[in-house]
């Protein structure tokens, strides 16, 4: 290990060595959370971290984009307004399709959820500027995705009981099941309901985590191969092309996971709005 590094440092230029050392920090380093401003709320540590920073950046960018897009409120929309309206219609159709017109009261929530996750995912794919910024994907942390999932499920539960009272529990009793099967079915339904927030949270978190690890590993191969120099260095073109391809795939995944999170939230909300219609 040390001998390998010694050989490397003796055969490589300064920049490449620094890059290599940076790379050697490993594919998990990008997920580390660093405290920028230590803060606490009573006994709770709520320090402003790189994660907090990227949440603020995502929120700020989303607000900025939609503010500038809706500033003119033109009858014939410009480009920005067109994009904003397309997004609006996209989410509105999603909510209407999954829940119906009554579900439009959840539209602002689902819209915010979709935009928040989409921007967090996309921002995570922007390259870091060495020495200036260090990109962090807030949705690659289970704490964040689980928080969002619990928010969705809490709204489902609270609204379900608010609207249907105890009738909401019919959710666990599908109609047309023979009575002797009922206990088993109710148990299965209950477990599947409990697994909803977990699957929501883990799906998003795992997709982001895996995508960024693969990106980092492929990008690391480029540096390693270039570091070897010569003919071996020329092979670096392959991981480079791979990185480009995976980046494009990750762009798709970033959108898809935001969409999946939003549509599943809609489907779960539908259970609360229309109990016994599924």
């Amino acid at each position, binding site marked *: 290990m040390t001998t390998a590094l010694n050989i490397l440092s003796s055969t490589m230029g300064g920049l490449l060595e620094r890059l290599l050392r940076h790379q050697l920090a490993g594919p*998990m380093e990008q997920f580390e959370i660093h405290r920028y401003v230590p803060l606490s709320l009573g006994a709770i540590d709520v320090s402003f971290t790189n*994660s907090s920073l990227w949440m603020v950046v995502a929120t700020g960018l989303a*607000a900025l984009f939609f503010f500038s897009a809706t500033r003119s409120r033109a009858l014939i929309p410009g480009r920005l307004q067109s994009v904003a309206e397309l997004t609006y219609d996209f989410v509105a159709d999603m909510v209407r399709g999954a829940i119906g017109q009554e579900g439009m009261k959840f539209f602002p929530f689902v819209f915010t959820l979709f935009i928040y996750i989409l921007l967090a995912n996309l921002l995570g794919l922007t390259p870091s500027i060495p020495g200036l910024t260090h990109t962090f994907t807030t949705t690659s*942390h289970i704490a964040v995705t689980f928080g969002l999932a619990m928010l969705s499920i809490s709204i489902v539960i609270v609204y379900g009981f608010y609207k249907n009272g105890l009738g909401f529990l019919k959710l666990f009793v599908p109609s047309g099941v023979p009575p002797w099967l009922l206990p088993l079915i109710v148990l299965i339904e209950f477990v599947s309901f409990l697994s909803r927030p977990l699957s929501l949270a883990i799906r998003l978190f795992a997709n982001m985590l895996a995508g960024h690890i693969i990106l980092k590993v492929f990008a690391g191969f480029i540096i390693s191969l270039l570091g070897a120099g010569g003919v071996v260095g020329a092979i670096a073109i392959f991981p480079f092309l791979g990185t480009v391809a995976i980046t494009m795939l990750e762009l798709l995944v970033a959108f898809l996971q935001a969409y999946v999170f939003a549509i599943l939230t809609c489907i779960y909300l539908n259970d609360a709005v229309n109990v016994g219609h599924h």
Partner: protein
Amino acid sequence: MLHLAMAAADAAAESANGSESSGGLPQMDFSTYPSQIFWLAVTFGALYWVMSSAILPRLGGAIEDRRDRIADDLDQAAEFRREAEEAEKAYEAALADARAKAQSIAAETRAEVEAEVDAMQAEADERAAADVAAAEVRISEMKSKAMENVREAAADVAREIVGTLIDERPTDEAVASAVGRAIQ
């Protein structure tokens, strides 16, 4: 190359172990959870507030306005179309009216002209008939005068012949009756 990759992996493991967390995934470092959840709540809440209070009403309003405007325009277009159809109907009615009137005028004129022509024809016929009658009278007069002349000439000739033949002057009555008998 393989050697380098392995070195990288080793170094990765080492640095992960050496970092501030207790090792393993940074995602499993529970000490960062309160801060993450807190800032998630703050940023998500802020975004929700901005979206629901300002942006979505404006966006929805713009879309609604456009939909209303388009519906209005469509209504107006339908109204115009109806008006155009009415105008066309009125035009066609006026056209049919005018055509009928024109036909009646033509028929009237034709009748008038025919009556006039008939009258003129009748007048011309009458005049022609009168002319014919006058001519016939004249012809018969001339005929009878010619007859008279013939009779006189015949009587003169007969008188001369008789005078020459028997040297006797027959009376005018005898000659006239003889000529009348001969001519009969």
